[in-house]
C-alpha cells in the first residue's frame, strides 16, 4: 500500500507545522489557556483565512472537500502544538453533523458561516451514563403543537463555552435504547431555560455542562428531519474518534522526540542517561506503541473514509489501541523526565494531560473494548 502523502496533505502539514513552530509555542499556548476566552479569536480568523475551517466541508458549500484521511493530518499537526482553539468541536463534531443530517438550506447557511469563521459549533451528545451511546440519552424534546419542549442535562460539552450554536441530541419519540426517535436541535447558548456551567478541563481546554428546563423551541430549531438522527450522529462520533486519535498520534510523536532529546542531554554517572540500555528499551517500547497506534489510525481512517462494512468496528479498535498506547507513552515520557515531567512549567506533563483527556472523550478504552466483544466482525 502506498502511504505517501498527497501534495495537498504534505503542503497542509507543512503549513500547519510552520504555524505551530512560529506562532504557537508552549508559552503562547499557556497564555491562551489562562485567558478569559481560553483561545485566540485572532487565531480563529487566521485558521479561516488559511482555509483550515473548510477542510472537511464539501466544495458545494464552499469548503475544500477533504475526506477523513485529509483531516487526520491536520489533527496530527494541531496535536503537536496542543492547540486549544475549538477546531475539533466545530469541525469534526458540529459541522460534520450539519453536513450529514442538515437540510440543504441549513447546510448552505451554517457551513458557509463555519468556513468564514463566524460560527463556532459544539455537539452536546454526552450525558452521565451515555458518554458515547446516544440511544441511552434521557434528554427529551416533547412536541406540543408546532413547538418542542426540551428538558434534560448534557455533560462535558466540548467547546460548549465558546460555541455560537450548540447541537443538542434529544429523544423526540421511542424509549431509551431505541435508535429511532433521536433528533438534533440547534440552540443558542443563551436560550431561555438553558443554564450553562462552563469550566476549564484538566487539559486546558474548555467545556460546559448544560441544563435544559422547559426550553421552548421552534420547529426551525430542528436539524434535518425529526426522529432520524441516530445514524448521522453515530457516524460523526466514530469519525471523530479517528480525528481525535490523530491528535493523540501527533502528541505521542512530540513526547518521543522530546524525551529522546532529554535522554541525550541529561548526564548522570558520567554519561548521557540515554546510553543506559534499560532506558533505551523504554524508548523503543514507546516508539513501538506509537507506530502500532499509527498503523491502527491509518487502517481506521481508510475504513471509515471508504465506508467499509466493519468501519465502525475499526474505529472502536483504534480507540482501544489509542487508550493503551497513549497511557504507556505519556507515563514513560513523564517518568523518564523525572519529577519535572509533571511540573506546570514543562510541556511534557501538559501533553500527558491532553492524552489522558483524549482517552476519556468519546467513550473510554474499556467501553469500546466491551462493545467490540458484543459486536462480531462481519466477514467481507
Amino acid at each position: 500500500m502506498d502511504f505517501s502523502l498527497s501534495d495537498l496533505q504534505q503542503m497542509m502539514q507543512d503549513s500547519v507545522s510552520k504555524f505551530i513552530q512560529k506562532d504557537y509555542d508552549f508559552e503562547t499556548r499557556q497564555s491562551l489557556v489562562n485567558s478569559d476566552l481560553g483561545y485566540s479569536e485572532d487565531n480563529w480568523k487566521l485558521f479561516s483565512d488559511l482555509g483550515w475551517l473548510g477542510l472537511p466541508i464539501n466544495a458545494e458549500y464552499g469548503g475544500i472537500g477533504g475526506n477523513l484521511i485529509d483531516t487526520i493530518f491536520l489533527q496530527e499537526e494541531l496535536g503537536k502544538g496542543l492547540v486549544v482553539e475549538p477546531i475539533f468541536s466545530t469541525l469534526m463534531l458540529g459541522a460534520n453533523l450539519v453536513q450529514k443530517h442538515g437540510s440543504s438550506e441549513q447546510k448552505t447557511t451554517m457551513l458557509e458561516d463555519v468556513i468564514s469563521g463566524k460560527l463556532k459549533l459544539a455537539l452536546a451528545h454526552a450525558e452521565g451514563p451515555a458518554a458515547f451511546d446516544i440511544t441511552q440519552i434521557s434528554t427529551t424534546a416533547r412536541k406540543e403543537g408546532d413547538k418542542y419542549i426540551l428538558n434534560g442535562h448534557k455533560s462535558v460539552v466540548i467547546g460548549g463555552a465558546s460555541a455560537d450554536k450548540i447541537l443538542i441530541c434529544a429523544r423526540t419519540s421511542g424509549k431509551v435504547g431505541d435508535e429511532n426517535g433521536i433528533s438534533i436541535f440547534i440552540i443558542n447558548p443563551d436560550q431561555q431555560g438553558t443554564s450553562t456551567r462552563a469550566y476549564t478541563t484538566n487539559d486546558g481546554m474548555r467545556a460546559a455542562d448544560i441544563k435544559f428546563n422547559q426550553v421552548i423551541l421552534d420547529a426551525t430549531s430542528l436539524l434535518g428531519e425529526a426522529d432520524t438522527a441516530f445514524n448521522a450522529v453515530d457516524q460523526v462520533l466514530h469519525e471523530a474518534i479517528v480525528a481525535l486519535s490523530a491528535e493523540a498520534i501527533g502528541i505521542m510523536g512530540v513526547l518521543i522526540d522530546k524525551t529522546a532529546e532529554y535522554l541525550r542531554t541529561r548526564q548522570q554517572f558520567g554519561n548521557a542517561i540515554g546510553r543506559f540500555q534499560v532506558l533505551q528499551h523504554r524508548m523503543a517500547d514507546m516508539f513501538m506503541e506509537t507506530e502500532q497506534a499509527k498503523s491502527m489510525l491509518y487502517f481506521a481512517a481508510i475504513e471509515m473514509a471508504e465506508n467499509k462494512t466493519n468501519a465502525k468496528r475499526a474505529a472502536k479498535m483504534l480507540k482501544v489501541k489509542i487508550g493503551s498506547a497513549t497511557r504507556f507513552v505519556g507515563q514513560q515520557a513523564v517518568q523518564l523526565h523525572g519529577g519535572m515531567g509533571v511540573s506546570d512549567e514543562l510541556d511534557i506533563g501538559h501533553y500527558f494531560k491532553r492524552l489522558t483527556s483524549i482517552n476519556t472523550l468519546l467513550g473510554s478504552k474499556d467501553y469500546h473494548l466491551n462493545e467490540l466483544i458484543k459486536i462480531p466482525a462481519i466477514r467481507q
Partner: protein
Amino acid sequence: MKILVPVKRVVDFNVKVRVKADGTGVDIDNVKMSMNPFDEIAVEEAIRLKEAGSADEVIVVSVGVQQCQETLRTALAMGADRAILVKTDALVEPLAVAKILAKIAEEEGTNLVILGKQSIDDDCNQTGQMLAALIGRPQGTFASEVVVEDDKVTVIREVDGGLETISMSLPAIVTADLRLNEPRYASLPNIMKAKRKPLSEKMAEDYGVDLKPRHKIIAISEPVTREAGIKVADVTELVAKLKSVGAI
C-alpha cells in the same frame, strides 16, 4: 513588470543536521527539506509587490533535483504565478546557479530578480552578487525594505552600523534580509490552486553554461563541542583568569 525569484531546497531550519560518518558531507537521508527561509522572504516580497500593483507576474525558479518541484509548489501556493524547474543531480555552486539564472532572466525579460541573501545550508551569500555582475545590472543586497516606482527601485539595506538607502534603475537584483517581511502561510485554497499553476521542467545542460564546480570539498566536520565554563568571584579574578589563558 516581471519578477523572478530563485528558491533553493534546503534542510529544514528545525532539523539538527549530522555529518556523514565518512566526513564527505551532511547526512540528508530521510531529513525534512523545506524552502530556504531567506528565499521564502523573497517570494513573499515579490507577491506583495504584485498585490500592490507594482508587478504583473511572479516567476519562481529552482535549480536542483526533481524534488525541488515540491519547493516550487510551495512558492506557487504562497502566490507565485508560475515555476521553472532546472533539473540537475550534480552539485551546483553559486556561480553555476547565477549563470543559469542570468540566462533565464534574459529569456523571460524580467525587470527585477529578488533572491534570498544566502541559503542556510552553504551560507555562501554569493548568488545574487554574481548574478548582478553576470548581467551587468545594479544590486541592492540585504534589503529590509523594497519600493518600486516607475523604472526605479529603492532598497533600504541593512549594513554594519545602520541602514543605507539606495536607488537603482530597473532591471535590478535585490537580495532579501531577515527583516524584509514576515512570509505568509500557504492557505488550503491556494495549495489547491497551486496544483494547477504551470511548472515547466528543463535540464541544466539546456542552458549551455559551464556548471563545473570550482571548489573541492576536502572534509566536513561537526563544530567543536562547547565545553563547560567556570564561575569567577569578581573582576580581579576574571582578569587574572583571562591573563592566565593568554586571552589578554
